[in-house]
């Protein structure tokens, strides 16, 4: 067990995946047969080239065009859409909302989830462990649409649970229209997202913790090391790869948020819950300003790509060895 794991860990590092850790080469076959081998990857490559990479390139071109929705004419305007973007206060507040999303999600979906997963995995009873993991996961299985609608009703001022619960515990003065006012709407949406997503990241961390050799914990308990020190000296360092991966996934997910905002507030009230995704949608598909929407898309692309490159760079620098 201990012998096989280090090599697995290294091989499975995302950096190694992306750069393509290749199996040992077998003696070269005749050229034709090698070319025929391409048939294995052809469907995947074609699908991605046509429907993922091509639109990505096209988007850059689109962002330099002004579309006239009435005549259907297109005019090249260079970087004007980006200039407009810089001067657009809603764009900046949307970007700020995405950042807020990222920060809060990091707290709940990464650090909260590691702690929760460690607690769950320390439970001795198999049934309880499995049961808790499953229950916490349920919100992630139901769609963001269902969860968003559900919380739309929970936040509803009259029939909503939240205000009634606050009333019930004597905090009735805190009751308010959570989604209906600018000051609370964004946080309310983000809170729902945390409820929906924490079970998923907890499950992934639980899986990572299960792979830590139990000998390490046994040795620690023989040495009389307490639970909290065990968490910091064994669990945390040994799920580092998963943590790195989840930090990246969470941040880049926060810059792609769309569904929950669309379902709960559509960006309102008064654009206070606008995020890049919904602002793109509104400009492109409500106002038919495709060039401007494409420019917003470029910003999302640059941010998510930068995050992904940081991840690759970090992974190349430190490989876990144990």
């Amino acid at each position, binding site marked *: 067990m201990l012998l096989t794991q280090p090599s697995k860990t290294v091989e499975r590092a995302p950096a190694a995946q992306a750069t393509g850790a290749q199996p040992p080469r077998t003696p070269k076959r005749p050229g034709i047969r090698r070319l025929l081998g391409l048939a294995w990857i052809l469907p995947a490559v074609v699908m991605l080239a046509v429907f993922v990479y091509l639109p990505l390139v096209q988007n850059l071109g689109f962002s330099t065009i002004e579309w006239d929705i009435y005549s259907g004419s297109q005019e090249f305007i260079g970087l004007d859409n980006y200039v407009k973007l810089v001067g657009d206060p809603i764009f900046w507040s949307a970007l700020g909302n995405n950042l807020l999303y990222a920060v809060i999600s990091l707290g709940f979906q990464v650090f909260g989830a590691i702690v929760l997963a460690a607690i769950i995995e320390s439970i001795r009873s198999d049934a309880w462990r499995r049961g808790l993991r499953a229950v916490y996961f349920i919100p992630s299985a139901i769609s963001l649409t269902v969860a968003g609608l559900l919380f739309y009703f929970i936040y509803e001022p009259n029939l909503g649970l939240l205000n*009634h619960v606050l009333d019930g515990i004597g905090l009735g003065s805190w009751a308010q229209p959570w989604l209906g006012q600018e000051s609370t709407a964004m946080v309310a949406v983000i809170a729902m997202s945390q409820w929906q997503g924490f079970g998923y990241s907890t499950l992934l961390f639980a899986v990572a913790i*299960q792979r830590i050799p139990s000998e390490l914990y046994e040795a620690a308990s023989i040495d009389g090391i307490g639970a909290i020190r065990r968490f910091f000296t064994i669990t945390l360092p040994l799920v580092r790869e998963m943590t790195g991966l989840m930090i990246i996934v969470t941040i880049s997910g926060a810059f792609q948020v769309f569904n929950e905002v669309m379902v709960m507030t559509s960006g309102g009230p008064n654009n206070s819950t606008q995020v890049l995704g919904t602002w793109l949608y509104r400009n492109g598909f409500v106002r038919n300003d495709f060039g401007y929407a494409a420019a917003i898309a470029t910003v999302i692309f640059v941010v998510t790509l930068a995050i992904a490159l940081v991840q690759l760079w970090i992974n190349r620098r430190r490989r876990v060895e144990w």
Partner: protein
Amino acid sequence: MVTRLTFAGLITRVFMWTFLLCLVVVVVYPLAWMVLNGFKTNTELFGNPFALPLQLDWQNYTAAWNRGVSNYLTTSILVTVTSTIATVFISAWAAYGLTRVNIPFSRTAATLILGGLMLAPTVALVPLVKMFQSMGLYNTFWALLILYTAFRIPFTTFLIRAYMIDLPREIDEAAEVDGASRWTAFWRIILPMCRPIIISTIVLHILFAWNEYLFAMVFTSGTEMQTLPVGLTSLMSKHGTDYPVVFAGMVIAALPVVILFFVSQRYFIKGLADGIGK
């Protein structure tokens, strides 16, 4: 010393279990509320949100069913099943080609396929709409099938590839000695050995396709082609005052995936553990 430790340990445990069970309530109570509201009348719903429904009346469910949910459900099932088959097959093919066949440009191909992991669907949205409109695929079943497959190939291939890389080389050699063709080796030997990760990727893809919203909203219109997530928001805006019917629709949308997760939980987690658990 010993007694103090056990006392502290006891406090910790009580605190821990209180926390875990509170979290269970926070998760389960809203869901239970959703299910119960599906059985209430509008008057009951607005009366006291904590109250139980007076009777288990299924009329909200039949109403939701007749107001479009049956159409949404059909579309969702069709899109989910076909895109799952397409994605998992194409990804397993690619993973086999990348890990066990000596092909030219394999590094470039791996980078191209797995690099797709970094790209957000939102970024390609505007050009994709133009493309699908000009191809005449807008508001068709094909639009969703193609998009769900293309955008999930990177992740699915990533998982299956990580699993296949660890299968011993000797298997391929043995298959070759026995005269098996590449196809036979893939179909009869390697794929069955990858069963745990294949099951995980199937479950993950079903969860994705069943719940996807952005593409479904932008690329379809009208009751006939909408999937459940988009259909529910239509139901909400069309019959916004008839909340219990919306709740019933939500339950119909949520139930299949929750059941799927509970049925497949053991295999799903095992596959994940072998595939991405580091």
